[in-house]
């Protein structure tokens, strides 16, 4: 199983029946494939649909039905089209049960940076600031390190996305829960030792008791 699939499969375990969930573009969008049908989960795309579905059959793409990255999608039965005002009203108003976002850095305070690398890359925050501020639960799905550098750091050096402490970090090495006391190591990837996680993590992790392997469903 490659790293991205591992992360997506683990994040999928966080999704409960009946939730309204927003998946960011890139890695987070892979999560949908691992959520069982019949859970009654609706995926929201912030560009304007509740009930995002899998890509349509070849030749049946609708130019007016895309995800937030501009890719063709379909809509599940019971879907609803919404405009951007309603879309972000749902997000900011706490109606979104969970958002899954990529990250550039998360720090020991559980704060996320994911929209700007000053001097190098300024993609913009898109909906990320609203999502992290407003969603009931924020899950960061990302590789543990980039270019050999840990993305879990003592203190974010990149511009913050929001003040809010995110609820969970899922990487290819570990599941980490930010708390008021610091970053709790909750689970390790299959076959990965706690020592390997600590060695790969620039931030301090709190390790108590036995750390189980990830639940992958």
């Amino acid at each position, binding site marked *: 199983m490659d790293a991205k699939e591992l992360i997506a499969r683990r994040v999928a375990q966080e999704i409960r029946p009946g939730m309204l969930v927003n998946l960011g573009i890139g890695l987070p969008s892979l999560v949908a494939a691992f959520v069982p049908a019949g859970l009654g989960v609706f995926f929201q*795309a*912030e*560009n*304007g*649909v509740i009930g995002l579905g899998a890509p349509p059959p070849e030749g049946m793409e*609708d*130019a*007016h*039905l*895309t995800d*937030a*990255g*501009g890719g063709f999608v379909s*809509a599940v039965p019971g879907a609803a*089209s*919404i*405009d*951007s*005002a309603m*879309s*972000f*009203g749902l*997000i*900011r108003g706490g109606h979104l049960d969970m958002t899954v976002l990529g990250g550039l850095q998360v720090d020991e305070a559980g704060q996320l940076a994911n929209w700007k690398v000053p001097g190098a*890359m*300024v*993609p*913009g*925050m*898109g*909906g*990320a*600031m*609203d999502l992290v*501020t*407003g969603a009931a639960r924020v899950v960061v799905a990302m590789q543990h390190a980039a270019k050999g550098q840990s993305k879990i750091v003592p203190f974010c050096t990149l*511009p*913050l*996305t*929001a*003040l809010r402490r995110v609820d969970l970090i899922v990487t290819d090495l570990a599941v980490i829960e930010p708390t008021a006391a610091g970053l709790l190591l909750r689970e390790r990837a299959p076959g990965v030792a706690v020592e390997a996680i600590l060695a790969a993590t620039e931030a301090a992790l709190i390790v108590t008791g036995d750390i189980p392997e990830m639940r992958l469903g």
Partner: protein
Amino acid sequence: MKGALTPEAAAERIPDGARVMIGGFVAVGSPLRLIDALVARGARGLTVIANDTARPGLGIGKLISAGCVARVIASHIGLNPDTQRGLNEGRIAVDLVPQGTLVERIRAGGMGLGGVLTPTGLGTEIAAGKQILEIEGRSYLLELPLRADFALIGAWQADHVGNLIYEFTAQNFNPVMALAADTVIAEPESIVPVGVIPPDAVRTPGVLVDHLLVRAR
């Protein structure tokens, strides 16, 4: 509704330096023929207010690449390296605004409200210089209303009095922008007689629309 315009006539009315809202999300729901006409006219110095700048060669991306744009107010420019390059080289000023704040600022401008009180952006660099209000024990950023000289709206269908409907995720910013500009020009994919669009289906009332773009030849 004051009548129908050709793309050329519409582009002639939009002077260099104008402040222009353009609907769409990665060009889905953007008024593509109006954009082409502005490029053909050689428009210069436009301020574009939009969710994003699409991609080179697509939607608003064409305005960027053709050098029509002096300033962008948007939530995301990450898919368009030409915008990024213009920013880095100082040719294009870019104001990045969180997506939910952007849509709400436009709505406030269109609905006569004095601003938006949002928790989004608190504690981040976009809060710099902005007023923070404490209301019932919580903090909110005061974000100012946005208006424009023109709103260029992409729609799926219009009737003869300018009532508009949209399809799926092509709705996005179009309905709020139709409220917030001195002149509103809508580009529908089809135009039908009055009565074809039932009152309960209308998303943008025709009273907000100044001109429809003539049908595509």
